[in-house]
């Protein structure tokens, strides 16, 4: 049975209201009113099951799957080119890739079509550079710059060439964070030197 879920509590919405064509539907569990748009995919297979994949040993002269030699190869990986059976194939947009390539492309590759996660070092450097300014009203964290400024400098230089967001953007965040951190470090060093050499006197 296909279920359309409430936008608030994720519980199934009453099907009789869904099919009656009512715009707003009231959830029987949380009482929230939601407006779902339903697509035919809901009816296609509401309870997906693992595909039934009988072992088909390759006949004489047929190619065997690279990963499961007991299976007949039906496809080739668009990325690494090995012959694979249906069991090892994944459809990714227009491409067919083997599961090992899919894992590699998602976790390690810089290919924007496959990447699953990125750390935004430029934002992190900017936040570290701004931390003493943001926490200034709290007063008790006035010393935080001693830790965050060197950390921002190290991270910023270390990750100068690291990939930024998937959405292309410049280095202004990184540069601003580095500049702020540099000014803070320079300020602290000048203060220490002034104490050392007695410039303040």
């Amino acid at each position: 049975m296909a279920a359309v879920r409430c936008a608030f509590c994720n519980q199934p919405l009453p099907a009789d209201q869904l099919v009656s064509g009512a715009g707003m539907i009231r959830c029987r569990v949380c009482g929230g009113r939601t407006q779902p748009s339903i697509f035919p995919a809901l009816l296609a297979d509401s309870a997906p099951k693992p595909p039934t994949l009988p072992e088909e040993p390759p006949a004489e002269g047929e190619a065997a799957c690279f990963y499961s030699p007991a299976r007949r190869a039906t496809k080739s990986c668009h990325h690494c080119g090995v012959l694979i059976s249906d069991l090892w194939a994944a459809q990714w947009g227009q491409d067919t890739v083997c599961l090992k390539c899919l894992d590699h492309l998602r976790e390690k590759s810089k290919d924007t079509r496959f990447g699953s996660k990125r750390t935004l070092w430029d934002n992190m450097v900017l936040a570290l550079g701004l931390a003493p300014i943001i926490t200034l009203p709290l007063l008790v964290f006035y010393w935080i710059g001693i830790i965050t400024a060197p950390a921002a400098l190290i991270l910023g230089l270390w990750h100068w060439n690291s990939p930024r967001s998937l959405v292309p953007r410049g280095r202004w965040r990184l540069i601003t964070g580095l500049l702020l951190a540099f000014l803070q470090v320079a300020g602290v060093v000048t203060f220490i030197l002034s104490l050392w050499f007695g410039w303040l006197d």
Partner: protein
Amino acid sequence: MKKAFEDYRYLAGGSGVSGSLWEGPDHLLFIDAGGFLFAYSETYKRIDYAKVQTINIARTSTFGWIAAALSILVLLAGLIFASLLSRSGAAATTGAGVCLLVVLFVAILLIIHLVKGPTCVVKLQTAVQVVRLKPLKRLRSAQAVIARITELCRLHQGQEAVTLESLGQARPGQAFDQRGIKAPMPRSVWLMIAVPLLLVAGAMFAGEPFVAGTAYTVVDLLVCLAAHILMGIGLARLSRYELPGTLKTAFWGSIVNFFLIAIFAYGLLITGSMMVAADAVRNVRAVDDLGMKVNTGIFFWMANASFKELSGFAWIFVGLGLLDVFFALLGMPALTQTLRQSKAGEGTSPPPLTPSSLVPPPITPPVTPSTDGEPPVDPS
């Protein structure tokens, strides 16, 4: 924010913590950002238009709450501004100037908020997941984006209409597919006790600087500990269920507040120990007796600390205590709702989860040896 890159066209969101939504040739790209103030990581979710089952939009009450909070702030700052304006002196003039700036800033925020319009929550459902589209927060802009996604989904899925027959002759109360979702929270005795205790503990903690006496502090500590222990047990027992948002906020907020109280108490302990130790060294001659005197002295000093000893820091006591009261009050309505639901009976609640309906059967390709004598390959 760029309007397009590679095959993607901009739909909604920005580079902040809400993430963004992009229209791809055959799929929707949802950039789910995580972080505080800035986005520190991005998770990319690609959803094929052909696999979208539903898009669900609901209006939320956040709009009203934010509007009310900003209006109160404007009103308060305005009142202070008016009272300072009637006074003479340099300090009053400076204060009035600051107040005016606050009034203007908050008023601008309020106007922007009102212009943007009502808030909403949008969830997109496929056969295997329900994704909250965080970039769609305002009803007006969300409706335009949903219209575009609907158009694309219809293009990839066809115009087939959903009918009573196609939904399997659904009847009211009929069982639904429950996979991938948690059941709503049942009535919990632990939380029924914990939340009122938290309310009492918060009120008592806020009253610490006003009430002297060791007994009061001991009772306050015990009530506070009991509330948090019971809350922890209650949370652990309810981990299988879907907790209402306000209750989640209340619990996690009170736990964070508990740590803040602990840090503040630690600071107080250090201050107290320094003051009492100095006093004990001055007045106690017997070295063997010194340790005991100091330990009890610190506790008594902390228990009797008031505005005189703590000066401005006493307000931190009050603030942290009131925060606990706020969290307790935040959790109360959701708890009473669960109580009402349990009294109403099973008729309104969804069918209980059975182990077979909780987790879909995993796809486990067999572990097979590779061709050239390498270790077995496990696709998982």
